[in-house]
Every structure is written in C-alpha cells, then in structure tokens.
C-alpha cells in the first residue's frame, strides 16, 4: 500500500501546486457576469460600451457571449447576474417562471436575409420575410440556418411558420442547420452559397462577406428587439443585485442609451436604443 500513499501525496501536491500557480490576480468581488447573445459581442458593442461604463462607475462587467438559448439556460443555472438577449417571448417566460426580476426593452435593430449575388431564388429587393423564405423553399436554393435555438433561430422558425412551411423536412438537403453561432453560420453560408438570415449588427461588422449582398430587408416582421433582465435573487441568492441593477439602470439611462446610439461601424449605427427608465 506504500505506492498508494505516494500516489495520494503526489495528487495532493499536484492540486496545491496547480492552485498556487493559478492564484494571483483573479479576485473580482464586485464584477458582474452578463449572459449575453453573441451579436452584441461580435459587433464590438461591448468593447465600445463597457470601458465607458467601467470608467464612470468603477464596476467591472464580464460578458459571456453565447446564443440566446444557452444564455437563458446559463442564467437559469444562476451562472450570471444580468441577461441581455433578443427573444422576447423566451425572455417573458424567463421572468414569468420567476428566474428574472423584470424585463426591459433595451434597443433594437433588424434582421436581414443575405445571399449570393446570383440570387437563385430571386428574392433580391424583397421586403416580406415569410414570402422571401417561401420563394427560397420553392426554388430549393440552399439556406443556412443557425439551428441552435438562439434568438435569431427562434425568429427564423417564427417566419417559416408564418410562411406555412416546415423547412426541417428538407434538413440536410437545401435547408442546412449549422448548429452554431451567427458568425460560424455566415462563414458556412458564404462558403456554400446559401442564403442566411442574420441580425444587421453582426452582418455590418462581419469581415468574411465575400461577394454576398443583403437580399431581403425592411419588413416590420424582421424587427429585432433586445431586452435586459436582472436575474432573480429569490431563485439565485448569489446574484449581485446592487451591481447588476446599477448596470441595467445605466443601460436604460439617457447616458447609456446615448452610448448605445453613438456606436457606429463604417458610419452605420448598429443598435437603436428604445429603453425606458421605469
């Protein structure tokens, strides 16, 4: 049994050494975690906005950017203080189920459908989202879907439903579910000449557009609303209520809203604030 002792000693030493190397500089007692959708990160909004907030208040904000579906799941696991996503029905359910304190509209932009310049489904210049989708389905032109239960995916499914089409029947044929983030899906779509529905912020900041163009835009149904919610301390006692609420209050304040509006890429405004202080 002697080797067992050596083994245990080795294991203990390993853990202690690992911890010792890891220790310095990670304590952030008042930093909050925001579970967020990816578009706000990929478009550079946080890189622009958070330093302004942190400089003003001295509070640190850590962003975990995943799809809306996963962000909500993570917040339900109490692994975040604030939820910032874009799927209103799911957000309202999150609050109704007691996981969130209150949902506030924060800002909006819109969804667009981008596609190859050849435009095989002849949807270029159209406004009506569901109609464009049904034309894509009819022509069986390739369409790359997120397929990951994200906010954008939820919206896309909603539009297919409005068009009266179940595209998943053609899954693996012309309907291709990438099961990954917006950027990865755009990379895949551009790579295989498929139409992709994306939020405008991600598209404007996306750098691998190839010769792709916006084919469908401007429909009311393509509206993309972002909401912000404080995770409920009744469900998750560890939520940093004070710091989390301070961040939400700032986002909804005149100052925060103006900061969001002032973020521009290539001269284009990416997010349009419509939050209200209540």
């Amino acid at each position, binding site marked *: 049994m002697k080797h067992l002792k050596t083994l245990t000693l080795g294991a203990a030493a390993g853990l202690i050494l690992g911890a010792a190397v890891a220790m310095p500089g*990670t304590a952030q007692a008042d930093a909050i975690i925001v579970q967020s959708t990816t578009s706000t990160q990929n478009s550079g909004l946080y890189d622009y906005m958070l330093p302004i907030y942190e400089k003003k208040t001295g509070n640190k904000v850590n962003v975990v*950017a995943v799809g809306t579906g996963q962000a909500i799941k993570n917040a339900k696991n109490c692994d975040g203080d604030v939820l910032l996503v874009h799927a209103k029905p799911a957000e309202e359910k999150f609050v109704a189920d007691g996981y969130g304190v209150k949902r506030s509209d924060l800002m909006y932009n819109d969804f667009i459908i981008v596609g190859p310049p050849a435009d095989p489904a002849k949807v270029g210049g159209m406004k009506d989202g569901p109609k464009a989708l049904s034309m894509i389905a009819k022509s069986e032109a390739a369409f790359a879907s997120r397929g990951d239960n994200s906010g954008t995916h939820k919206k896309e499914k909603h539009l297919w439903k409005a068009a009266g089409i179940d595209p998943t029947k053609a899954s693996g044929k012309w309907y291709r579910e990438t099961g990954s983030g917006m950027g990865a899906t755009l*990379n895949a779509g551009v790579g295989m000449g498929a139409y992709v529905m994306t939020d405008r912020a991600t598209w404007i900041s996306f750098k691998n557009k190839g010769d792709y163009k916006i084919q469908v835009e401007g429909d009311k149904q393509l509206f993309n609303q972002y909401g912000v919610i404080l995770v409920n301390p009744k469900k998750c006692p560890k939520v940093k209520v004070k710091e989390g609420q301070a961040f939400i209050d700032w986002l909804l304040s005149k100052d925060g809203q103006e900061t969001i509006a002032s973020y521009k890429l290539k001269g284009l405004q990416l997010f349009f604030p419509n939050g209200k202080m209540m």
Partner: protein
Amino acid sequence: MQDFGAAFLTAFDLLIGADADLLEIIGLSLRVSISALLAAGLIGLSLGAALAVTRFPGRGIVLVIVNSMMGLPPVVVGLVVYMLLSNAGPFGFLGLLYTPEAMIIAQAILILPIIAALSRQLIEDLHAEYAEQFRSFCVPTGRMMMELLWDARYSLLTVMLAGLGRAMAEVGAVIIVGGNINHLTRVMTTTIALETSKGDLALALGLGIVLLSIAIAINAGVMALNATAKRQAYA
C-alpha cells in the same frame, strides 16, 4: 485564397507589435495550460508509475479505461466541469465558474489520461528491464516508482510536452467553463474562435500562427535543455 498571405502578414504584425492585449492573452494561455500541466503531471505520472509496477485484479480494465480517456472530447470535459462548477451544480459554492481556475481544472482533466497512459507504458517497459534487479535488492514499490520515473525522465518530458500541446490547443473545454471573457478568461484558442465568428479569418489564422510559434519555441527550448542535461548526465 488571399487570406493565407494576409494571415502571415497579420501574424508578423502581431508578433512585432507585441500588442498589450495580445500579450495578456498569450500570458493567460501559458499560465492556464502550464498550471494544468503541473497538476495533471504530478497526478498523471504518479498514476502512470503506480499502474506500471502494480498488479491487481481488474488492472486490464483500468488500463483500457485510462487509454480510452486519451480521446476525451474537450467539449464533453468542458460540459461536465461546467455542470459541476455551475451555481446549480454541486461545486457552485466555490465560485470558480468563468475563472482561469475553472479552465485549469478542465484542461488538467483533459490531459491527465494522456500523461497517465503514456507514462504507464513507458515505465512498464523500463520496469521489465529492471525487474530482476529490483527484486534482488528487495526495493519497495514506492522507491521503485521513484527510480523508474527518474530514469525515464527524458522520455517522460516528451509525454509532458504532448500534454501541454493538447492543453494549449484545445478550445472546446475552456470556452464553456471560462466563457471567453475579455481580460479575464480569454486565451489564444478562444480568441481564434471569436475572430473566426467575426469573419476576420486573416486575424484568426494569424493568431493561430502566433500560437504555433509559441509551441515551437517551447518545444525547442525544452529539447535544448534536454540535450544539455543528457550530455552532462552521460559525459
């Protein structure tokens, strides 16, 4: 693909520019992966040596399991560690999720089987050579393990490098348990994943080249040290 040329230029710019953010990311990558290597190394080498010199019922099954675990998918390790460290999980009270420590734990779990399995094989082969001698001197098991580990040290260094390479190269585990938080848990591979999703393929590939350069530097350094040590040992 003009991206390839652009990637090399970007990599060159990144290395020459020594941008503060990039240095921070490289520093964290090294800190996380080397910490994981130290933890997994101490446990893995002990485990490997113990499995090499002992015989017990069910040993064959244990060996098969340890060897199979070398193929653990990083994303599965990430998911399991996330579920354990989540505030909804059993170790949530530690507050480790979305910290570099969580990333170290995930990477250590990922590379532990590699170190244990490879060192077990090496030491077992060496043990076969030494077995008679050990027996004639009645060397106790613990002492035997230490002797074997020491004598196999140069080969074991390659095992450790394999572990470090795996740790530094993986993205699936650290992106889940670290969350790719800017200035906190963002490492080389998660930055590459992020830049890819932004469609900035040249920057992503450029970062990949930087990562590879670091790996080459580490391996070359270790090999040089190794050669010097060997020369002194056998001189």
